[in-house]
């Protein structure tokens, strides 16, 4: 409650959520028919894509550019002021001290969640709908992201002599993950797999209403490793060499655990329209195909067909078929100069030794090939039963609430605590 950086973050989070929410409501209204939208488009509109995910994006910005500084101040402040030298003499294990600080920061982050709750209340007051599991998925995703940021900031603050060095380290990590995602988009392969565990890509899954155990475990492992690393470097009385060896051991253990976590298959589709799953009849049939199968898609990372294939079909297939392995093969990143290559654009199927080759990247095309290899008849699938929730509403009251009332309220509370402390 004494950290100015915390109050600044709290005050800024309101306008950030406000900008995202107000723009999202206006865009949703336009897509819902205001100003003449193509017939049928509005039926496909869901608040998860149009309102919830965009409004939550404010927290991604805050977690990247505001929260690290609050966390660094909380940890490095004690080192700079000399309080750490006193605190360490209490005999409390450093991991408990750093854990307590992380919990306090987590509680502060929950407090920063009030504006998004207000946005939800406003949306419902406009007549909008919210699907609780989807909102829950985003809350979990952003809490994990914040936890990771806090842990990494704590580690950086403990490792470096000065808070500004810690800030540079954390920003370098953030920018590094962006570079990784950028490289993954071009190169694919192993880069793509590694990039899928960066905070940005992790949030992408939660934004689609997909809760993946492997992602959650990987983030928790990274979080724990960073906190233990912070605790190791807080022990000023331990020789640097010993701390360095312990750090290497922690990193090695975290790498092994993180690698192990990547094999965790369970995931839960909590989206209202079950966008991450095949229709139930298809899913039931596909989950019964237990023989080892492999799909090789000869498509470059930047080829739009590959994006559609992955999003619409293969990501769902991985969740459904228990023994499927997917590989992408390409010699270039954009595929433009591979079009004349003999096999470019082909999808090779191998199911228990039976092979087939196809060119179609649609869901029906892929599934038909699999059914044919498995020797089973495709199920009868009806029309999709999920209708959207279009709403052409104005973001009434949002501007004064997020741009004026919230910052003033935060300022007032901060001043109240400041005065109470000094009297």
């Amino acid at each position: 409650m004494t950290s100015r950086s915390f109050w600044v973050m709290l005050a800024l989070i309101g306008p950030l959520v406000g900008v995202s929410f107000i723009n999202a409501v206006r865009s949703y209204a336009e897509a819902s028919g205001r100003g003449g939208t193509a017939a049928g488009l509005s039926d496909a509109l869901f608040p998860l894509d149009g309102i919830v995910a965009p409004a939550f994006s404010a927290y991604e910005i805050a977690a990247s550019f505001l929260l690290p500084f609050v966390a660094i101040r909380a940890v490095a402040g004690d080192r700079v002021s000399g309080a750490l030298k006193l605190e360490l003499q209490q005999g409390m294990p450093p991991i408990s001290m750093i854990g307590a600080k992380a919990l306090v920061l987590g509680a502060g982050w929950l407090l920063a969640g009030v504006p998004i709750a207000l946005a939800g209340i406003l949306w419902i007051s406009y007549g909008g709908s919210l699907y609780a599991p989807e909102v829950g998925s985003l809350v979990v995703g952003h809490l994990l992201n914040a936890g990771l940021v806090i842990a990494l900031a704590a580690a950086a603050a403990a490792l470096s002599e000065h808070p500004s060095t810690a800030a540079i380290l954390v920003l370098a990590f953030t920018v590094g993950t962006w570079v990784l995602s950028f490289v993954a988009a071009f190169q694919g392969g192993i880069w793509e797999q590694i990039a899928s565990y960066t905070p940005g890509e992790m949030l992408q899954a939660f934004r689609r209403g997909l809760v993946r155990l492997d992602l959650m475990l990987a983030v928790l492992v990274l979080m724990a490793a960073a906190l233990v690393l912070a605790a190791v470097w807080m022990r000023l009385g331990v020789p640097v060499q010993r701390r360095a060896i312990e750090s290497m051991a922690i990193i090695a253990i975290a790498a092994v655990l993180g690698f192990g976590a990547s094999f965790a298959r369970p995931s839960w589709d909590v989206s209202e329209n079950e966008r991450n799953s095949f229709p139930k009849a298809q899913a039931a049939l596909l989950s019964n195909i237990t023989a080892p199968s492999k799909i090789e898609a000869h498509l470059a990372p930047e080829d739009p067909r590959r994006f559609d294939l992955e999003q619409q079909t293969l990501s769902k297939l991985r969740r459904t078929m228990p023994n499927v392995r997917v590989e992408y093969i390409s010699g270039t990143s954009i595929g433009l100069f591979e079009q004349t290559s003999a096999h470019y654009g082909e999808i090779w199927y191998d199911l228990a030794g039976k092979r087939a080759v196809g060119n179609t990247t649609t869901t029906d095309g892929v599934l038909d090939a699999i059914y044919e290899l498995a020797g089973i008849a495709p199920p009868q699938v009806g029309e999709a039963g999920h209708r959207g929730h279009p709403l052409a509403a104005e973001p009434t009251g949002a501007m004064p609430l997020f741009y004026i009332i919230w910052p003033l309220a935060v300022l007032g509370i901060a001043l109240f605590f400041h005065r109470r402390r000094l009297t």
Partner: protein
Amino acid sequence: MGARSSGEAIVRVDGLSKTYGRVHALEDVGFSIRAGEILGLIGPNGAGKTTLFECVAGVEPADQGHAYFGQVPMTERHRSSKLFYVPDGIAPWPDQPVRWVLEFSLGFFGGRRALVEQIIADLDLNPLMPVPIRALSKGQRKRTLLALGLLAPQPILLIDEPFEGLDLRQSRDAAAALRKHVTPDRTFFLSIHQIADAAKVCDRFVLLSGGRIVAEGTFDTLTALAEQRAGRRLPSDFEEVFLALT
């Protein structure tokens, strides 16, 4: 030696060495702290006093050597239960007022609550209670740190430069407070670079120069040693004794 001291060494430091790169901050340092005394670590600026305190307190790792409680090597557990070190030049919890800092230290370290009022009065902290640490002057901050140390529950208190930043009157009051609170169960080890201050408050002295211990003992012991080395009688002045030994 003060009448409070039993003469029994409760802490023994043996062969302590510390280097920073090529600089030898401490070389084979050894001395003992006796129960119930005020022991002064005397040395010019850069002698290695703070490094020695931090190594004994476990805040800085020593390259070689050990500290012992009696005959037992000092562990982390020993340190947290027996020693409390008050560093010089720190401004802990800068946004918090003095009242909060004292309350927090009582709760966090499990301090001597019964002494709070007395220590606040001894160090004249009452007017400073609502003032944030960052707004205190150097001397005011030093008095607050002294209070933190005196409230700490550990029986051995290490204070780095307890009179730094204090004016003449405040130094005298702080020295009186320290003498008032030293008991057979409460031992003080003070690092002081002002010889005159040290002479006023300490029972025994450890003289540190260039990272080495040059002498250890009471004023009389050190005077005898200095006269022996100088080969002549010296005036009864601690500064002369110090100069002759360093």
